[in-house]
């Protein structure tokens, strides 16, 4: 294991960028799903999705925390006091929550991505990252069990649930491919052993997704295109709208740091 002190400045900067992007993805997805809190179709599902949302936000705190150890940044500052242009979230997590099929399929695809990325990150040469990934990995088991069942229910349920699922997959497919695109600096992280087996990640994720969707009679067609380099700096309308809501309270009273 390479202790974090051995990271050179370039690798450290690349890692801070990746941790920010990962934290932003978890935070925004958690926030999107929290929009269902109090509005779930039935109480049990309201509670379940709120639990999932809380987990993802907790994981965002972990990634921001690992970044904080590198550069002294603060998780609350990163979440509540950055402008939309400074976020590195993917379009995939920013898209409005849509209907129940869209919400569940998006969470399921994200869970599949994490089911492949977290075990890899748990073998990272950067120990704090590996520890956080190992922690998150256990909790993600509950997510995949839950959303995997929903994919089956939706795909095999009624004509309407099936059609809505197909429509949801179609609407998010391109963005799902973009979620997996390498970030600037990833190459250095791979070279430093910080991101082990990273080149095999997209294929492993798609294989996992395809198998689960097939069992639910859902065929998404071709694998989505993974762009050669992620463009995370583009501010989407959805990102601005989401952050406007999420940061409203913190920005209304910057002095309020606890409650």
């Amino acid at each position: 294991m390479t202790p974090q002190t051995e990271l050179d400045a370039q690798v450290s900067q690349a890692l801070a960028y990746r941790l920010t992007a990962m934290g932003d993805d978890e935070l925004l997805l958690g926030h999107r799903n929290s929009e269902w809190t109090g509005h779930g179709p039935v109480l049990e599902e309201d509670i379940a999705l709120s639990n999932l949302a809380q987990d993802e936000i907790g994981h965002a705190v972990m990634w921001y925390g690992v970044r904080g150890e590198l550069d002294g940044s603060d998780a609350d500052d990163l979440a509540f006091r950055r402008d939309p242009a400074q976020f590195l979230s993917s379009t995939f997590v920013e898209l409005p929550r849509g209907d129940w099929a869209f919400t569940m399929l998006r969470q399921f695809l994200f869970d599949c991505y994490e089911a492949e990325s977290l075990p890899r990150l748990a073998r990272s040469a950067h120990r704090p990252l590996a520890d956080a990934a190992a922690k998150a990995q256990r909790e993600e088991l509950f997510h995949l069990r839950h959303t995997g069942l929903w994919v089956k229910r939706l795909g095999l349920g009624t004509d309407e649930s099936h059609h809505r699922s197909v429509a949801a997959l179609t609407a998010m497919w391109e963005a799902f491919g973009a979620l997996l695109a390498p970030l600037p600096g990833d190459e250095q992280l791979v070279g430093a052993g910080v991101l082990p087996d990273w080149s095999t990640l997209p294929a492993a994720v798609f294989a996992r997704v395809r198998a689960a969707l097939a069992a639910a009679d859902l065929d998404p067609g071709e694998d989505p295109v993974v762009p050669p380099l992620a463009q995370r700096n583009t501010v989407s309308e959805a990102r601005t709208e989401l952050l406007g809501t999420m940061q409203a309270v913190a920005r209304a009273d910057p002095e309020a740091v606890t409650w």
Partner: protein
Amino acid sequence: MIAHGRRNDPGTWSVGGTERLRDAAWRALTTVKDPEIPVIDVVELGIVRGIEVGSGPDGPYVEVTITPTFSACPALHEIERNVTVAIAALGVEPRVRTTLSPPWSTDDMTDEARTKLRQFGIAPPGRHDGLLEIALDAPVRCPRCDHPDTRVRNAFGSTLCREIRTCSACEETFERFKPL
């Protein structure tokens, strides 16, 4: 305000040595309960990863290392505060640090904690030795009538660590602490 532990002159600890202080710290931590399950303390829960005793610029200190149960568990902040108060009551400087490694598992919970959970009405997690999926789907006994035929009502519950089940025999709905 401080209910447990007595205030000591920090100097007295150097007489009895660090072992005595370490023991006192462990005992003090048994007064810190899980805010969401007030019948079990943080030591039984298995989230105390270590206690280090030393001498700082302000006299003796006790550094307690704790680990979160679920990473998004909001109780951790309250636990940190309560650990600080319990250690400060020993008359030494409290230090609390958190670690994620090794990640907490319900296997870290003592048998005593499991018994207390059951008496409290929460079905305790079975030991899994890493085989989490098998433990998750293993039969769960009703904490009220002890019948083994219970079913999942909701895989998620009032806190991140619990699911909701119903007993087929007595029809009671209860919570289960999920294996992790």
